[in-house]
């Protein structure tokens, strides 16, 4: 009896592990799909007074989102006013634009103009 019980427990545990693995796999799979489509890839983190990545390549019509991780406010201003500028972003605030025609768009922080970045828009 003891052996049987132990076997049952092992079987049950194996099932649970298998189920758990499957679930984890499924979740991971979904995240990968998300990554490949849009949002995460087109995120620019503002940290240590820098845009990261400094240059991002996106497809025309996609969205680009900045998030400010500094304790200092930052702005996103297009050189030559090629897209709308952000208001000042406080800590953890975001700003999103939808990019238009293919081309290279330089931008900077008007509060700390040493901070510059580039969006390359492809077809």
């Amino acid at each position, binding site marked *: 009896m003891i052996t049987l019980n132990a076997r049952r427990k092992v079987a049950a545990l194996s099932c649970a592990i298998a189920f758990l693995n499957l679930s984890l796999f499924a979740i991971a799979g979904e995240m990968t799909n998300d990554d490949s489509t849009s949002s995460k890839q087109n995120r620019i983190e503002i940290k240590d007074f820098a845009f990261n990545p400094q240059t991002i390549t996106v497809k025309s019509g996609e969205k680009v989102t900045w998030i400010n991780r500094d304790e200092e406010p930052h702005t996103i201003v297009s050189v030559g006013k090629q897209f709308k500028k952000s208001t000042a972003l406080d800590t953890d605030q975001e700003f999103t634009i939808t990019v238009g025609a293919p081309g290279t768009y330089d*931008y900077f922080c008007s509060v700390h103009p040493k901070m510059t970045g580039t969006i390359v828009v492809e077809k």
Partner: protein
Amino acid sequence: MSDYISHDHEHDGIDRRGFLQCMAWAGTGLLWTISGGVLVSKTLAQVAKAAEPLPATDLSFLQISDSHIGFSKEANKDVTETFKIALDRINAMPTPPSFLIHTGDISQLSKPEEFDTFDEVLKSCRTKDVFYVPGEHDVLNDGGKLYRDRYLKSVEGKGSGWYSFNKNGVHFIGLVNVLDLQAGGLGQLGDDQLEWLEADVKDLGTSTPIVVFAHIPLWAVYPQWGWGTSDSERALGYLKRFGSVTVLNGHIHQVLQKVEGNVTFHTAMSTAFPQPAPGTAPNPGPLKVPAEKLRGMLGLTSVKYLQGKSSLAVVDSNLS
């Protein structure tokens, strides 16, 4: 203390005491000491005269800077309180300053309610005259319109808000170097303001003491962090012929000083939070220090001018 030369070792007409006095008035003579963990500065003239009382001053004014009302992060969760303490210090001065100069960043995010809080707290200050120049935090979203409407009404600011005025024979110039900044660049004055400046000082005698105040330093403190003004050299060129030029800035939340010819550059502490010394941190963001050390790194700057002495005495004090 006698004024005649007692030890002229070099036969150059000046002894050590005379040299120290002279250097103090040239502005290079600020002596920094740390006493019980408190950073204090005294002019060498004060040190040399030891117990002698300071002479009556013809004009004294006070610089406050970088209040950042609205900031509530770890570096200082109550910037309104430390601003109040700064005003208490001003109210406690035996001789109140003639006026205050605020060298920018009143607010953290240019919000009307931040300016409201600042104005409300400022009412407690005995000294009522305040002259302002904006910091980049004051002009974030509207090119500085709200700021100008609130703080530059009485001075008839030109362009984006620059102006000048005279007090006791000293010519004061408030400059704006936080607007229309260019990608990759530093603080900037711009052609219009520089042309105005050239005309503003054109008819002044070279013996007129000049005080220039602006938010971002008008010298290259640390360009890697944007701590400088791209066209400041041109501005200083117009001021070269004057015997005494004192440049007062904020922005970097710490005291730094430089003397170049007749020009003394001086940056003030913030009343809100300190920033790291140039290049000592990954970025120039707010410097977190232990609570008991914070007030020692916040402060204000007192400036005194005596007629007959061409240079001004600049003394910093902290809020400890």
